[in-house]
């Protein structure tokens, strides 16, 4: 094998099981790739080089001693990256992309981190993100932006830009991100990888630094749907520390991949997802992808999601209200940045937060504060909760008629740095197609469906009803198998 990192996670697992390669070699190759590329891509905020290699060696010796694959765990020895809004107690900081938490060391592991470790995964480092996961380009990181491996002049999307970019550039075969309004699916689309947001309540949020609690959900980044099925199986399941994580059976997602009967598949294609502002190349690629499903025997059904036209408005009220509350704790008292300009208690709070937060965080915290404040609550927050109800009802009605809904993940391919930073609203519209899944709590996946003429990836978004991730993955796999986009390598790998 010329490039170990070209393997998918499942291929790595098979290769380790039959002794072709060791975890030490894979993790070593991962760090080699990171060393070669990350100066340009900046996908990582921190790396755990020595610890990861030691863990890889430990897996190798356990395997050599005859320990069964089942005992070693489904991800044994596979290098993986996690978004730096997941708490880890390994001595690395958990920064959430913010100067506020630059030196914060969590005394506990997030639930998904525990699950990854128990599955034998080797966490190589923590990925860059928009500060507190607020953004669609990773330009808001307190530690500098991540670049898109397909074109370093372009953003990788966000907020999980680092997680998407490190998978796209084959630094790791899989990464974990979080999605509040599209923060997995949109960077997945812009970086040409699989990005999936599970049903709200599928994966425990314990240890995920909250942005908007009723919308946040953790999910996988991989190059193939099969790997996404593998990783989702590890991440999913109940957790007594998260009241909003449901004890819903976790199916064998891998085994379910080939269960979809495309002849009887009903696909909803809502007009709302093909409106004004949609890039022509994206629209063409997405329609071409949908055609592949039709050719496989699926039926297109007309569905209406009239309130999805108000998803962005609804989202920017609900999400900012929750974030203004969730971020109140960053005040310089118990952890995090404290201003040295402190005088009295209130000055200390105000200076610490002014210094620790970037502008986008301040904007959203203030907007959220405003929509919850007395005299405005009913007009903004309560109204938004009602529209959220309508959006959810639209989807419920749609899923009575169809098995899934398809459309573009992002209205445009990756855009240039700075293109949307001066106008917060234009940045918010980057998530116009992804936000409604969060509001409706349903799962959604972005799967590559081609490239623009200039070589930027395009993603097809597929959404389905709550807790139907197994079928969603199976549906997504058809486009992967028929187009094989995951084999296309970003130019940065060739220039290497």
């Amino acid at each position: 094998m010329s490039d170990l990192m070209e393997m998918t996670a499942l291929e790595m697992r098979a290769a380790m099981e039959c002794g072709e390669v060791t975890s030490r070699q894979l993790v070593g190759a991962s760090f080699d790739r990171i060393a070669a590329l990350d100066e340009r891509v900046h996908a990582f905020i921190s790396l755990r080089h020595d610890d990861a290699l030691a863990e890889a060696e430990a897996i190798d010796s356990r395997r050599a001693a005859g320990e069964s694959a089942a005992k070693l765990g489904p991800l044994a020895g596979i290098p993986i990256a996690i978004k730096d809004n997941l708490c880890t107690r390994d001595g690395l900081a958990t920064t959430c992309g913010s100067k506020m938490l630059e030196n914060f060391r969590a005394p506990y592991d997030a639930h998904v981190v525990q699950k990854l470790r128990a599955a034998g995964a080797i966490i190589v480092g923590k990925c860059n993100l928009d500060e507190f996961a607020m953004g669609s380009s990773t330009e808001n990181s307190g530690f500098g932006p991540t670049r898109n491996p397909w074109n370093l002049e372009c953003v990788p999307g966000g907020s999980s830009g680092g997680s998407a970019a490190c998978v796209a550039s084959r630094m790791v075969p899989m990464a974990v991100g979080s999605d509040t309004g599209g923060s997995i699916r949109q960077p997945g689309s812009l970086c040409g990888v699989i990005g999936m947001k599970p049903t709200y309540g599928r994966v425990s949020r314990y240890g995920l630094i909250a942005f908007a609690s009723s919308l946040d959900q953790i999910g996988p980044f991989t190059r193939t749907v099969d790997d996404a099925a593998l990783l989702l199986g590890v991440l999913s399941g109940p957790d007594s520390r998260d009241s909003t994580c449901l004890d819903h059976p976790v199916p064998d997602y891998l085994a379910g991949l080939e269960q979809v009967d495309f002849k009887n598949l009903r696909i909803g294609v809502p007009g709302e997802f093909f409106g004004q502002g949609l890039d022509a190349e994206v629209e063409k690629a997405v329609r071409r992808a949908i055609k592949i499903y039709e050719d496989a025997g699926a039926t297109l059904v007309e569905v209406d999601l009239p309130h999805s036209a108000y998803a962005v408005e609804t989202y920017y009220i609900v999400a900012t209200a929750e974030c203004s509350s969730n971020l109140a704790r960053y005040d310089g008292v118990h952890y995090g940045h404290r201003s040295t300009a402190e005088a009295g208690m209130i000055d200390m709070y105000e200076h610490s937060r002014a210094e620790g937060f970037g502008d986008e965080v301040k904007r959203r915290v203030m907007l959220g504060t405003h929509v919850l404040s007395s005299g405005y609550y009913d007009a903004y927050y309560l109204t938004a909760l009602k529209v959220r109800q309508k959006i959810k009802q639209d989807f419920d009605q749609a899923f009575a008629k169809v098995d899934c809904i398809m459309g573009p993940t992002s209205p445009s391919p990756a855009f240039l740095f700075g293109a949307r930073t001066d106008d917060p609203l234009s940045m918010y519209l980057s998530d116009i197609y992804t936000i409604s899944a969060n509001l409706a709590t349903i799962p959604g996946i972005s799967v590559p469906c081609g490239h623009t003429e200039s070589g930027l990836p395009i993603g097809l978004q597929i959404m389905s009803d709550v807790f139907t991730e197994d079928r969603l993955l199976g549906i997504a796999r058809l486009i992967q198998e028929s187009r094989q986009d995951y084999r296309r390598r970003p130019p940065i790998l060739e220039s290497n």
Partner: protein
Amino acid sequence: MSQLTVKTIVGIEVHVQLKTRTKLFCGCRTSFGDAPNTNTCPVCLGLPGVLPVMNREAYRLSVMTAMALKCKPARHTKWDRKHYYYPDLPKNYQISQYDQPLGEHGFLEIETSQGRRKIRVLRVHLEEDAGKLLHAEGGGNYSEVDLNRTGTPLLEIVSEPDMTSVEEARAYCTTLRQLVTYLGVSEANMQMGQMRFEPNINLHISRDGEIFKTPIVELKNLNSFRSVERAVAYEERRQLAAWQESGITLSQGGKTTRGWNDTSGETYVQREKEEAHDYRYFPEPDLVVVEPEESWLAEIERNLPELPLEKKDRFINSYGLSEYDAGVLTSTAEMAHYYEAVVTATNRPKPAANWITQALTREINARGIEINRLEDFPLSAERLAELVLAVDGGTISKNAGDTVLSEMIESGKSAQAIIDEKGLAQVSDSSALEGIVDEAIAANPGPVADYKAGKKQAIGRIMGAVMKASGGKANPRLVTEILERKLAE
């Protein structure tokens, strides 16, 4: 000057710390007095990424209290975040209940010198407590934050403004404390701050048929019944004087917050926290709603203990106790339980009541014993029952009984052992007494003549002689009987 009538209006918000082993949303212990910051975890420290999980027992105790306060327990409740910045509140929001409290519209019946009154309870809700600020001695320029108490379950009970006097305000507080300790939902230890009172008070002053309402004052964080009493009384005087001087009424003055200085005995204006009144409540997204099953509610209701006033009425009606005795014997659940154990063992409700409310209470007070549990009584109910029977059945005199009680507590011996040891048994053998009586009659011709002449009280002198001759052991009832018979001969 025209005539003024002044009516005091008081409503009280009470915070009661619930008796759970662990905090409301995490498994840290709720113990008091541990070294600072040793009962904390990522959840109650409000670290990034943590989530709360509701303590079932805290909810159960809350529902129990709501039921005892005759509130209708909610079939649907939720949690809300209340935002304000304070260093003892690590998340800078408190998880509380805003518009759907777990209980509403009940009442608490109180007893005052004017009789019983129902004080309406507006709402009962559950919330988390904040931590504690410690201030450096000698005016250092910093404060210390201890988060051990952060997240402790607190029940907030809000009354309607139904109290019209200092006496009623105090009675409400003491009755509420009695109730929660009866229910066993709280230790309600005042010194430990497990029960805190915030009275709202204003005056309705009528002059020439016109009513003037003074601005409402909320008194913060009173920690004792005495401070409630004194602070409300102080406010009555202060508000009247302030109105007389300035004429400012509720519509102009609104509502202000005042603290209480226990040393000077005065209330003082508290600096309003900036934007203190915009708490920006919204539903807590990290917790799900509570919709208690009917069967669970029914079970809680079934297990509600008999409440203090119900018990008091039963003691009066079934045991024939006085209002006073019944009150003393139902003052705490422990006391009532102890009393009924003695009654069960003796079937002598009134003597049992007398022994407990008098001699035993004297012994307890003299020894400075605090009764928080049944085991705290210096004497088991069985032991006391033995004594009650010994005195009531005439084996020993009342006076000897006092001695035996004291000795039982001191030595732990049984009543019978002490009676035998000290030879305290009364002479109730009439043949033995006949001789002593005869001697006494012979030795006291004067009183005998007086008695026979109609001065019946002269019998006391002869009785005295009999008792003296018997060394105090003669059974007085029997002696009286024999004497009366012989003197009538």
